[in-house]
């Protein structure tokens, strides 16, 4: 390296190469997606280096920086770079295994060595650790990423049952893998708040799962009711019966639905699922209130838990006053 400008020129050039490599890799993974035409750094680096000839004034540099930093060109380019991945997700061709190429230790090392022009043992060690972490993250995400590839799921056909199963599977897999992060004991001065948030996240997850279960049951019953209506219509059709007016059909629809749902409402399954769902909802609400309270603790306002203490005190005092008042009345009567 003869002088600093050579270093920076080399650095920019290496980054351009790195970007081109990433782009090429993405294109090789998803060849049918839109090609990216330009390097996001080129316009920025061009603007910067053109702005720094010998003796360039500060205002010009400021102007160029402003333009380059506030330009959305770089963001646009970044979007274009990720577009193949987004397209793959949308088209359901995403393969978690593909990402191993991005975390290949040797490739990464080579790339970063080139980008930053250093190659030390420490950096190698950091890279190994990063790669291990990446592997761990992939292992964690693999189960729930796999659960999304359930062939029975078809959102386009709107299959409620498949959707529910899919969500349940995702929830379970997530809880067994990456979701474990939410159960980690928190550290530091915000430990309480973090654990509070974790409890709330778990409660939300529990409510969502139970609500899904409940909604699935209701959806199925609604579907059964509709089938009953259709069956009745078919029977009427076969026997030559006709509706004289719309009200007759409406009455049939109401009556059939009411009876079908009433039958469900009397089952133990309904009681259990509804109560599980509502109890999870109440618990979530309670934990949410606790979070809100902890956020408001610095404000000069009475919080709900504090008001409850006051209410309890008022309640106890009110009872006590009534008892004492009764005793006073008795004493007055005795005196008379």
């Amino acid at each position, binding site marked *: 390296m003869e002088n600093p400008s050579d270093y920076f020129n080399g650095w920019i050039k290496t980054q351009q190469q790195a970007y081109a490599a990433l782009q090429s890799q993405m294109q090789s993974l998803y060849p049918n997606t839109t090609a990216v035409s330009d390097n996001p750094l080129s316009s920025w680096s061009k603007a910067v280096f053109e702005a720094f000839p010998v003796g360039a004034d500060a205002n010009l540099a400021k102007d160029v920086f402003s333009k380059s930093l506030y330009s959305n060109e770089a963001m646009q380019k970044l979007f274009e770079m990720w577009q193949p991945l987004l397209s793959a997700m949308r088209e359901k061709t995403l393969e978690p295994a593909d990402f191993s190429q991005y975390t290949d230790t040797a490739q990464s090392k080579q790339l970063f060595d080139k980008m930053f022009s250093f190659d030390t043992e420490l950096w190698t060690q950091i890279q190994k650790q990063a790669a291990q972490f990446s592997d761990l993250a992939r292992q964690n995400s693999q189960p729930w990423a796999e659960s999304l590839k359930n062939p029975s799921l078809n959102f386009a056909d709107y299959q409620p049952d498949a959707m529910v199963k899919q969500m349940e599977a995702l929830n379970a897999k997530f809880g067994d893998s990456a979701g474990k992060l939410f159960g980690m004991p928190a550290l530091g001065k915000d430990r309480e708040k973090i654990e509070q948030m974790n409890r709330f996240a778990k409660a939300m997850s529990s409510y969502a799962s139970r609500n899904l279960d409940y909604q699935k049951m209701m959806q199925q019953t609604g579907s059964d009711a509709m089938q009953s209506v259709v069956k009745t219509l078919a029977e009427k059709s076969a026997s030559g*019966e006709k509706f004289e007016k719309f009200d007759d059909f409406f009455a049939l629809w109401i009556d059939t639905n009411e009876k079908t749902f009433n039958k469900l409402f009397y089952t133990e399954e309904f009681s259990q699922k*509804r*109560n599980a769902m509502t109890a999870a909802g109440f618990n979530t609400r309670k934990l949410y209130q606790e979070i809100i309270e902890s956020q408001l603790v610095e404000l000069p306002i009475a919080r*709900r838990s504090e*008001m409850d203490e006051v*209410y309890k005190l008022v309640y106890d005092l009110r009872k006590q006053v009534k008892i004492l008042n009764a005793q006073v009345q008795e004493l007055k009567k005795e005196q008379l």
Partner: protein
Amino acid sequence: MNNPFANMDAKSAMKYFGEMNSKMMKGATLLTDVEEIDVGTAPKTLVYTEDKLAVYHYASDAKNACGIPVLVVYALVNRPYMLDIQPDRSFIRNLLSQGLDVYIIDWGYPSGADRYLSMDDYINGYLNNCVDAVCRDAASDKVSLMGVCQGGTFSAIYSALHPEKVHSLVTLVAPFDFSTDEGLLFNWSKSMDVDALVDAYGVVPGNLMNDGFLMMMPFNLNIKKYVDMLDVMEDEDKLLNFLRMEKWIFDSPGQAGECLRQFVKDCYQANKLVQGTLQLGDKTVDLGKITMPILNIYGSGDHIVPPAATKPLNDLVSSTDKTLYEFKGGHIGVFVGARSQKELAPAISQWLIERDAPKAAKKPAKPVKAPVAKPVEAAKPAVKAAKPVEAAKPVEAAKPVEVAKPVEAAKPATDSKP
């Protein structure tokens, strides 16, 4: 294969929608003219207040045929003006016209400050004070309790704990045996996590309770009712009937958490009342301590408090004078149906009058008192205890035959609330 919709041709459909449009236009005009939905219009005076509750005394022009005042104890979950929903469908006015001296408790709307009120507070505290206040106001040493739904349960509990203050007990569509699985509320409550509910809310919002009631007949109460409303929109009287009922249905006080917690746990889930193990404060409730005459009324078509939950009371009390009255109707039809006005209210009045005793002297009713709390002033009756008529006969013909229509014309979701 025939088309079942074949008769619904375009011409008749257009006619149908034209008529409906005309009704809606007229109804919209009527709705914009409604300034206030008047309910509970029978004249009454305030005789006692304590915390949020108020006791009213109804004025009557009829000749007093019953010396013992009747205290109506309504449920906590709704507003008591259901009994006086409109002048021509007023259970209260009907009782007054028969010569009864009627008082009513309005429990009010609990706020956060009331979340710790327990069943003990409501029954041994408030209800007991209300009874004392009515005794003072009517110059009587006893009252007849008329408990409605949950208010009936409370009245029976009170009568068991304070039999010396209750002359006779009338219960209307009130639950006592909660072990039945005939009603949806009874089914759902058995596995309900009431701790989670009360801990989350403190005072449980009335709207939350309403959601549960509406779930019992979701299509009729959430859809059909409003479609049917279109049929009565052009008729001012019917529209106002509908609006009054609608106002009542959604005028729902919150529930004091601790009271609700105990009511659900001890009654709906553990059925302690009929087992004789219900504990209020330091007292155990023994329905066998009820010795006064009782009239227990149930609705044969009641899906909120099924007959199986109501009828067992008569087997649990020690009263020798006890009547079980079957009303052919639903939970709300008991109070607002045409048959109720024509038969039930007169039958209750007659039953009470037959068991009444003439009083030696009855003070004239006091004028309105200042609305200040008078919790436990010692009631010293000016008149000695009125002796109940011996061996009074139960009301005959207590079983109407036809099904009573709860609400005429508009059919505004009558049986959606306890």
